């Protein structure tokens, strides 16, 4: 316990460095911005900013990127409540009750409850990340190559099962990602693999190019196809930000339950903020005495999902920081950011770079504090941003992405590769394939192959090693069980229902 406190103290010391505070603020601001603006997602933004972090110190870069992720959870709720447009997928569910509250003239309490709930969730999640960090890391240090390979399989399977859409297609996407990650020089022998004698491919396909193409460019192309949506901004006069005593009493339970549920879902691989917010809302509705209030401006329907998405956004850092396994696409991008700076994510981060680990955790708490300040008084500013028409927004995003990719290696070929992935991403959506599992597969590919090869070498070519070593066996069996469960017709139908809702 004292160790935890002293570690946190060191973390706050790092995070309170003026530069890091600045990066944290920057991340929170950018996060709120993309949270507010529909049409730009968190994944796309982090992909866009990856090249920029190249020139920053690693701690500052990661603090900023983390800030974008949880900042977007705050920003998304603002537009959901005021304009009924979810700025982020994570606040889709907040529209239901939040916007109803705004229509009844209670926009102020809705906004402040979502901010208070998010802040509470953020604080709890920060403590949770700090507390779980050390024990999980010590478990991870017991892992050999076979266990790592099985763990990654389990992580990918989790991601597939919890994602929406067909499980079969999601597995196919993971494998596609693994295959794409093998382009370039072989880890052990240096032989060029599937490079088609293109010199630029000898180093492999850059992760930033893939991410920017699949999430940045593809999203722009996709949005250009969609029919125009009218954005009528409700002239909501926000009077009285403070919630009443009754509001606080009503939402206190929902905030706590949302935080608990969100933290749990966030830790699970494949989880993340979107599922957390949906699960929290459904749960509140189930246990409510009068479920019919939901959808008509129930304050619990704002408090629970907003707490849950923020909690999940932060706890999803746990598998990344302790085991080195990204549980969702945003975390996959964080792996990209870490590798740009030469940090290998995993248990060794905590021991070798304690100031990075604890600094990032402490910055999350500081960031949450900033966000509450950024969001509540400045709500009018953010909403007025919605007046920027998309026809001016998308070319700006596009040139920003182009310069960003170009800046990584000063290579025009990288820009072309990203464009190709943009078209691929567009095509994938047309055929109901999800790009997120592909990204996860792509990021984990080199690690998986390395561990697979090592495990086979150590076991002298005996494939059963994955099942004879106890930890590995448990992990793999869980993965297989999950896959079978997800394939069962009854559960499949339930799963479809959940995602339709």
């Amino acid at each position, binding site marked *: 316990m004292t160790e935890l406190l002293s570690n946190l103290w060191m973390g706050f010391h790092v995070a309170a460095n003026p530069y890091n505070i600045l990066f944290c603020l920057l991340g929170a601001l950018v996060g709120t911005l993309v949270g507010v603006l529909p049409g730009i997602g968190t994944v796309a933004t982090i992909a866009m900013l990856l090249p920029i972090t190249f020139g920053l110190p690693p701690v500052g870069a990661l603090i900023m990127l983390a800030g974008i992720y949880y900042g977007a959870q705050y920003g998304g709720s603002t537009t959901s409540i005021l304009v009924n447009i979810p700025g982020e997928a994570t606040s889709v569910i907040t529209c239901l009750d939040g916007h109803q509250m705004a229509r009844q003239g209670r926009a102020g309490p809705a906004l402040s409850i979502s901010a208070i709930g998010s802040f509470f969730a953020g604080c709890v999640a920060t403590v949770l990340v700090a507390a779980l960090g050390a024990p999980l890391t010590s478990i991870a240090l017991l892992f050999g190559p076979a266990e790592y390979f099985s763990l990654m399989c389990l992580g990918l399977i989790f991601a597939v099962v919890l994602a929406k859409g067909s499980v*079969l297609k999601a597995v196919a996407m993971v*494998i596609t990602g693994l295959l794409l990650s093998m382009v370039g020089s072989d880890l052990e022998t240096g*032989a060029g693999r599937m490079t088609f004698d293109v010199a630029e491919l000898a180093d492999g396909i850059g992760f930033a190019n893939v991410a920017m193409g699949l999430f940045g460019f593809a999203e722009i192309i996709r949005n250009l*196809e969609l029919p125009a949506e009218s954005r009528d901004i409700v002239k909501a006069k926000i009077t009285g930000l403070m919630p009443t005593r009754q509001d606080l009493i009503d939402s206190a339970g929902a905030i706590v339950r949302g935080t608990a549920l969100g933290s749990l879902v966030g830790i699970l691989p494949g989880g993340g903020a979107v599922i957390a917010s949906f699960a929290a809302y459904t749960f509140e509705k189930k246990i409510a005495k009068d479920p019919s209030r939901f959808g008509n401006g129930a304050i619990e329907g704002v408090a629970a999902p907003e707490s849950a998405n923020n909690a999940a956004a932060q706890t999803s850092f746990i598998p990344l920081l302790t085991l080195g396994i990204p549980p969702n696409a945003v975390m996959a991008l964080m792996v990209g950011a870490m590798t740009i700076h030469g940090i290998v994510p995993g248990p060794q981060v905590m021991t070798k770079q304690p100031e990075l680990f604890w600094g990032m955790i402490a910055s999350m708490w500081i960031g949450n504090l900033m966000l509450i300040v950024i969001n509540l008084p400045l709500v009018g500013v953010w909403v007025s941003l919605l007046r920027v028409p998309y026809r001016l927004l998308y070319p700006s995003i596009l040139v920003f992405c182009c310069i960003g990719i170009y800046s990584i290696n000063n290579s025009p070929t990288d820009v072309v590769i990203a*464009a190709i992935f943009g078209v691929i991403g567009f095509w994938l959506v047309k055929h109901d394939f999800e790009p997120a599992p592909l990204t996860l597969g792509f990021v984990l590919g080199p690690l998986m192959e390395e561990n697979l*090869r090592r495990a086979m*070498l150590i076991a002298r070519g005996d494939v059963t090693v994955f099942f004879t070593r106890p930890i590995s066996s448990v992990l793999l069996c869980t993965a297989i069980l999950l896959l079978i469960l997800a394939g069962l017709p009854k559960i499949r139908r339930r799963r479809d229902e959940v995602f339709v809702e």
Partner: protein
Amino acid sequence: MSEGVSPSPGGARRGFPVHTHNLIGGLIVAALGLGFLGYAFYMPNAVIPRFMAAATLLIGIAVAAGLLPVRGPRDFYGGIALVVLSTLALTASAELPGQRGFAFGPGTAPRLFSFILAALGAAVAVGGVFAEGPEIEKYKVRGPALVVVSIISFAALVRPVGVIIATFLTFMISILGSTEMRWIESMIAAAAMTAFCWLLFVVLLNLPFQLWPRFY
């Protein structure tokens, strides 16, 4: 969500009528199969990919001729594309040495995952033959094409004319993709964005860019 983009007259979810769809889709699949068959014959050591490409060719012909019904086109063509991708990967990694003793060679893992991908793709495609599924959304050409053209033109222009002119032109080309483009507004926005990028990337981040055209 996106102002300035024209609404599609027929709604977004209406695709081609079924019979033409089969013909065009089948022909595309057949052409891909033929292309990869040629590629696999050109590469040594690629026996299995030859069979896979030949199978793709036959399936394409069958679909085009109407012998093979496609009930779920999204799944069917999606699955076929994955099979084609794995054919490509198998052909490209055909020459890499495989397993030696119990040590993996550089070619082992790519081939292993290619086979898994081919199997999964085939399963998805089979699902598309038997299960009813939605039509493929109609592709719009203007917006997407101009976005891609603008990205490619950035790549082509950035070396010869420098970042500033390339940024401005890329912005202008991509904004043509929107149907509600206004010239003066766009020019001002493009200039502002160029200035912003210059400030961020060159002044603040200090990246070594070539800003203006270089005359040799």
